[in-house]
């Protein structure tokens, strides 16, 4: 509407009220008296809110608790002496991060679109920016800073790999992505026997990286499980259908925190006592299954919205049932419900903060644990929670923003 007038072949310009600043103001803020009043009232609200908010943030709040915790927000207690005895294990998450940068670079090289490029540079740029945090060198060594900076060359490296080597196909980059996820897990967990990969118990995992690992793992697994459940629920085989419905309804009908409680209290009973127990793994399984149940319903919605003619056309072409599903129905169904799926991902990411129930120190719990163990910081709880809200907001809003771009790119609106 507000686009500037382009030259008209007939030489007649659109009227002023249709374009330009006045046109915009008139159309959007002051089109009638009611709108004008609304505009003024909302503007007043906005200004007071901003005034008090900013005043608190810049004058009243004491942010030392944030700087005190610093890197622990990101990595939890991963790099403490207890976690990684006699070694500096900081390079392991760093290396994982660099691999992610390479992967994002490869995705960009593969697809070559603006969104992928923006995401890759954003992640690498933010990581590299951490290298310039104003800590002294004792707190944050030169090695750490160099590893952080390496994220920048990692992006073009990935890009070049995808562009100029046989790696550059969708399947291979996907495989690479999955591989990197597992390599990251191995890097973080360590391998017994390898001296430079000394195992680090999961109890020391924490901070935002824990939220991200749980979210990424949960997201990658809940999508296929959700798809399977959705297909099962739509299946015309009564037994399969009933099983899927039962699973979905039970997992959707119960609060996640009771499921997490149960994963810690009842589930261990079902396994032999001397079997290595891993409460984080159990929690991850529960979170994934919970998310899958929701994912299944999202996908089912997408499948239902699909025109039956699509599957018919595929069948008429002689494609067997599973290929019809994999090549025709699912791609379209998923594309239909990208917003819902991303919403589900965001929900899952937010839900990872509930692992405090099982005593894991995720980004929220690490902060709370700190102020509780160091009571002099208890009065800083407000600052802490405002900071945490901002951290989550940046990630989740980033996700929905990217999903919007991906949607545009995939041309959801084009049909």
């Amino acid at each position, binding site marked *: 509407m507000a686009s500037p007038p382009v030259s008209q072949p007939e030489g007649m310009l659109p009227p002023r009220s249709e374009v330009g600043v006045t046109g915009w103001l008139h159309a959007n803020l002051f089109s009638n008296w009611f709108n004008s009043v609304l505009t003024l009232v909302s503007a007043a609200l906005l200004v007071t809110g901003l005034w008090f908010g900013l005043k608190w943030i810049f004058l009243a709040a004491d942010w030392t608790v944030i700087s005190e915790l610093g890197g622990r927000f990101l990595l939890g207690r991963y790099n403490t002496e*207890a976690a990684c005895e006699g070694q500096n294990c900081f390079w392991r998450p760093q290396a994982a991060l660099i691999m992610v940068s390479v992967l994002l670079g490869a995705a960009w090289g593969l697809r070559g679109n603006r969104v992928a490029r923006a995401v890759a540079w954003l992640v690498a740029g933010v990581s590299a920016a951490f290298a310039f945090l104003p800590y002294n060198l004792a707190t944050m060594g030169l090695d750490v800073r160099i590893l952080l900076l390496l994220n920048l060359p990692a992006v073009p490296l990935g890009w070049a790999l995808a562009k100029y080597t046989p790696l550059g196909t969708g399947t291979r980059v996907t495989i690479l992505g999955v591989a990197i996820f597992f390599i990251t897990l191995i890097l973080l967990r360590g391998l017994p026997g390898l001296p430079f990969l000394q195992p680090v118990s999961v109890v020391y995992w924490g901070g935002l990286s824990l939220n991200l690992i749980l979210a990424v793992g949960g997201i990658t697994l809940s999508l296929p499980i959700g798809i399977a459940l959705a297909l099962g629920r739509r299946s015309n085989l009564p037994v399969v259908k009933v099983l899927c419905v039962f699973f979905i309804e039970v997992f959707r009908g119960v609060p996640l925190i009771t499921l997490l409680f149960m994963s810690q209290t009842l589930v261990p009973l079902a396994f032999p006592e001397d079997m290595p127990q891993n409460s984080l793994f159990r929690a991850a399984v529960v979170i994934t299954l919970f998310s899958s149940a929701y994912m299944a319903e999202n996908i089912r919605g997408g499948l239902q919205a699909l025109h039956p003619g699509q599957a018919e056309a595929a069948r008429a072409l002689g494609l067997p049932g599973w290929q019809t599903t994999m090549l025709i129905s699912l791609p379209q169904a998923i594309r239909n419900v990208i917003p819902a799926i991303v919403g589900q991902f965001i929900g899952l990411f937010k839900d990872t903060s509930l692992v405090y129930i099982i*005593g894991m120190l995720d980004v929220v719990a690490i902060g709370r*644990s*700190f*102020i509780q163990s160091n009571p002099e910081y*208890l009065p800083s709880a407000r600052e802490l929670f405002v900071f945490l809200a901002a951290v989550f907001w940046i990630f989740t809003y980033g996700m929905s923003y990217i999903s919007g771009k991906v949607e545009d790119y995939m041309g959801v609106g084009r049909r």
Partner: protein
Amino acid sequence: SDTSALETENANLKAENEAMKAENEAMKAQIEEGMAMLAAGTLPMGDGESRLNTVRERGKVICASRDDVPGYGGIDAAGNNVGFDIDLCRALATAVLGDPSAIEIRLINAAERGPTIQSGEVDMLVRTVTWTSSRDAGWGNYAQTMFYDGQGFMVRADSGITDALELEGATVCVTLGTTTELNLQDFSDQNGLGITVSTFEDTDAVVAAYDAGQCDSFTNDNSQLAALRTALSNPADHVILPNTISEEPLGPVVPHGDDQWFDIVKTVMAILIYGEAYGISQSDVPSAATDNTKVDRLLGISGAFGQEELGLSETVAQDVLKAVGNYGEIYDRNLGPSGINLPREGGRNALWANAPCTDCPKGGQIYAAPLR
């Protein structure tokens, strides 16, 4: 159509059927086996395996503890688990593995304590757990009281209250899933106080709520009250009432079903206590014979107190005391002057009246079975 192809297909199918039948058979056998085991009340777990062996194979002692109470279990600025309870876990790790850092601390909340120890996932629960008979019966075995606490109240000084019996009609803040809640109810009912409770899941919230005046009083174990008072915006404005409304003996708990492990934990706790009683400090653990036979026996220099039966090394006490110090040192480090500064002298957490030490606090109840 091609009959030979059909035939091979049929053959394949038959083979498949055969395989499936075999599988079914196997599955049936397994299920039957499972049912039988169910009936016998056994489980397919390594019954022969003792916890001591499991722990040694694993190379780590797993303790369930906490991260939110300074002095008992917290996380220091460097990110390490510290506290009285954590040190008890370290002592155990030194005893069975020879390494005080061979521990893994599972952080759990109050409500998870029972199920966690019941499932046998952890080797020891040291999370300010009050010893009660029903927990002893239902959760696991209490090894040894390592700290005597009692529940008290904190109020604002300007309220003019000097006795808990004056709390009629008060709103009292309490943490969830603890004996504290239960004791408060008993106290209120018994004295007809009609107390209203506000139950919080976590310490940060409960302290903030009390500090802001959302409740009139804050009840917890006295020692924790003392620690948390320092966190209030103005500690001097608050007093801890003299009343103690409950017995709160705190100590480690081990899972049911492994007597040897139970005994090991009890012995380690006794080593810490007798270490103090005999005046053996961390910095000065004799490794050669002294003039005290009791000390020599404790340190494994001469004689024994059952190390072999317990599967521990001769010099287990030396190792433990060198690694974490004696009871008094652990106390001072965490709860005493270098910790949250709870007085010990003259209290119940001093050693028993005629403990043989020269300059340690005496006249209290910290006592363990003699080591011999």
